[in-house]
């Protein structure tokens, strides 16, 4: 029904009509012919878990996605190129660093954006029968080893400490077939998360997403500069302090290290929420990423959520599909992503 539209002209072989007849060849069987597909089998097996044990397993499976020669995956009739597009929003408005947004959060703050970025990994397409197939991400400056960085700040306006380049899409290939949905996880898989940023390949070398003291990556960074009340501006004569910047930084917490080995051995709360958007048509739909919805119950004049504070984090975590207190996944509570 929501058959995937192939976006490359070279793949003209009737993919749009592909329905029932194509379905049996999807999934594990077809995947076996592709290196990415082989990893998909493992991924599908590991999807159910959450909590500490699952996080270690996730990393191993994802590493399998970094197949040799991946960059050169030929576009053949049995491999479909796909592009997953994201649309950054603040409620009903497009996200832009030069804009200001009113009525944000529980205190109805007016804010100017400072940062909006997140990592996505374990991107899968979902077939009619629910079978999931890992999308092979084509390596680039924005995606590598199965991880993509979505970056919506362009250094303009209040995002002054950012970079000009932006990225709002994930580009990959899947086995030829018909798919009616997508699924993905926010963040960076365990095996890639706790590496040094200076030596990592893009996009894992982004120092604005490096969480040095926790020796990992930020999975999501949303920062907003909060405007003072008009009434409070009166007296100071312009020499005001720097505006408060509210922070929502999502990452793994409760991480344990072993000094004998170095690095991180496990994290009690991996905090990698999973999203399943079905139906979703890759040809016509976009994934709306709405920070206003995530921050709806946050007090932006005060809240600094670095993933560690119950007071500042429990609501936005809930809206990301995470229970802050237990670390468990709560997909039904997420408000971050929607299909358009």
């Amino acid at each position, binding site marked *: 029904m929501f058959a995937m539209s192939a976006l490359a002209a070279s793949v003209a072989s009737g993919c749009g009509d592909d329905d029932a007849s194509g379905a049996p060849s999807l999934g594990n069987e077809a995947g076996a012919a592709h290196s990415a597909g082989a990893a998909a089998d493992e991924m599908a097996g590991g999807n159910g878990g959450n909590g500490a044990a699952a996080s270690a397993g996730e990393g191993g499976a994802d590493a399998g996605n970094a197949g040799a020669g991946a960059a050169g995956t030929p576009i053949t009739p049995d491999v479909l190129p796909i592009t997953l597009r994201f649309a950054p929003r603040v409620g009903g408005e497009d996200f832009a660093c030069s804009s200001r947004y009113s009525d944000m959060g529980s205190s109805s703050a007016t804010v100017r954006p400072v940062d909006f970025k997140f990592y996505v990994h374990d991107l899968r397409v979902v077939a009619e029968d629910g079978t999931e197939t890992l999308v092979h991400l084509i390596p680039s400056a924005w995606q590598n080893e199965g991880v993509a960085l979505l970056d919506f700040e362009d250094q303009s306006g209040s995002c002054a*400490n*950012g*970079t000009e380049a932006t990225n709002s899409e994930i580009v990959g290939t899947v086995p030829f077939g018909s798919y009616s949905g997508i699924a993905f996880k926010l963040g960076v898989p365990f095996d890639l998360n*706790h590496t*040094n*940023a*200076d*030596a990592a390949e893009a996009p894992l*070398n*982004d*120092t*604005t997403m*490096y969480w*040095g*003291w*926790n*020796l990992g990556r930020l999975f999501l960074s949303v920062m907003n500069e909060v405007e003072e009340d008009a009434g409070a501006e009166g007296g100071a004569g312009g020499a005001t302090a720097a505006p408060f910047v509210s922070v929502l*930084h999502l990452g793994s*917490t*409760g*991480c*344990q*290290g*072993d*000094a*004998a080995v*170095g*690095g*991180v051995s496990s994290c*009690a*709360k991996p905090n990698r929420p999973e999203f399943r958007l079905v139906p979703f048509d890759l040809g016509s739909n976009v994934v709306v990423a709405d920070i206003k919805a995530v921050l709806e119950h946050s007090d932006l004049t005060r809240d600094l959520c*670095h993933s*560690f504070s119950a007071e500042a984090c429990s609501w936005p975590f809930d809206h990301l599909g995470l229970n802050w207190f237990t670390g468990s996944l709560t997909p039904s509570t997420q408000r971050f992503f929607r299909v358009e």
Partner: protein
Amino acid sequence: MLSRCMSSIGVLLVVLLAPSAGCGQRDPENESDRGQAGEGDQQSESGAHQGGRTIGSGGRAGSGGAGAGVAGSDASGGEPPIPTAPTYAWDLPSDFPTPVVPEDNPLSEAKIELGRHLFYDKRLSLSETQSCASCHEQALAFTDGRVTSLGSTAQAHPRNAMSLANVGYAATLTWANPLLTSLEAQALVPMFGTEPVELGLNGQEQELLSRLRSVSAYAPLFEAAYPEREDPFTLTSVVQALASFQRVLISSNSRYDRHLRGDATALTASEKRGAALFGSERLECFHCHSGFNLQDAVRFEGKPATATPFHNTALYNIDGRGAYPEPNTGVYALTQNARDMGRFRVPTLRNIAVTGPYMHDGSIASLSEVLDHYAAGGRSITEGDYAGDGSKSPLKSPFLVGFEITATEREDVLAFFESLTDTDFLTDPRFANPWP
């Protein structure tokens, strides 16, 4: 052999490290050298040091390679083989072990020199107002004298700046972080951290590298440090050089060290009594401030870290269950494991007299008050947000038992602390600002 060769061909390798020029520090047979080491060196090519010590090319220059299989040897002559790969020759006193050097960042004199330039370069903060040295001043054993530090954007840091003396031996880095076990990983925290902002370079590494490229002094330094890299101006190069410089910040020549090496006149009678009290089961100090570095969690060649001791020293007990005030909750902040509340790393006590104020949050001003704290078995705060009796904390270290101490004994222990100051280290030109 190698170290001597290095010296004789004018390479700075041997010049760099510890003033005390003992031989074969990893060789137990040379234990008897303790006490004599270094006293007779007459060379002065790199400047005189206090106490008549010099560093450099004496025949007894230290031996031992940094884990690269360069065995120490005696001072017999012979033609120097030209090393095919630069191997760092530590020059450590005989009672000091060899620090661990990561395989992917071998030490070299060139890297250390580059690291020293970077360490003292304000270009390493986005606002060009701070360098690493802004919070780590050599004269204060690489601390800043503040209660808690200030970042380059004037954002307050919740912690007291730690000494970098012998930081290369620390099993974990910073005050309470079991995850940070290499100086390379740690360097990224002040550079790119935002909680709080320290140097403020997050997202600005290209700006940093272009700044460094524009300084003519850096090209030869980077090229010498990384001859194998086509473009040595990378973030990894910067990080590895900073780590290399910090790794060789060895403090080993306090009067207490000289006492341990057999110099019967190095300590006063009061200081000796203080040392004995420090090591007594009554005061219990030595359990945590143990070993050659007066610090329990150390690692070195032949002794990997097997545990990461962190201790709750009963400074706070806000809720009666041992809580410390946010954001300084210790290892708990990372692990969120209740038993980690208030657990912090043991700092070395070397140079402790110049590194105040004390504790992770600088909340104790003087060493005398530190003694009061431990004598009471914990700190009692009677009013305010942090009110609570630390001595009743269920999480406090079992060594916080409290003790009685006479006025004379107190003077003795404080005198002992003073004897841990290594003036050579605090003034060593090899560790000083290289910029004009």
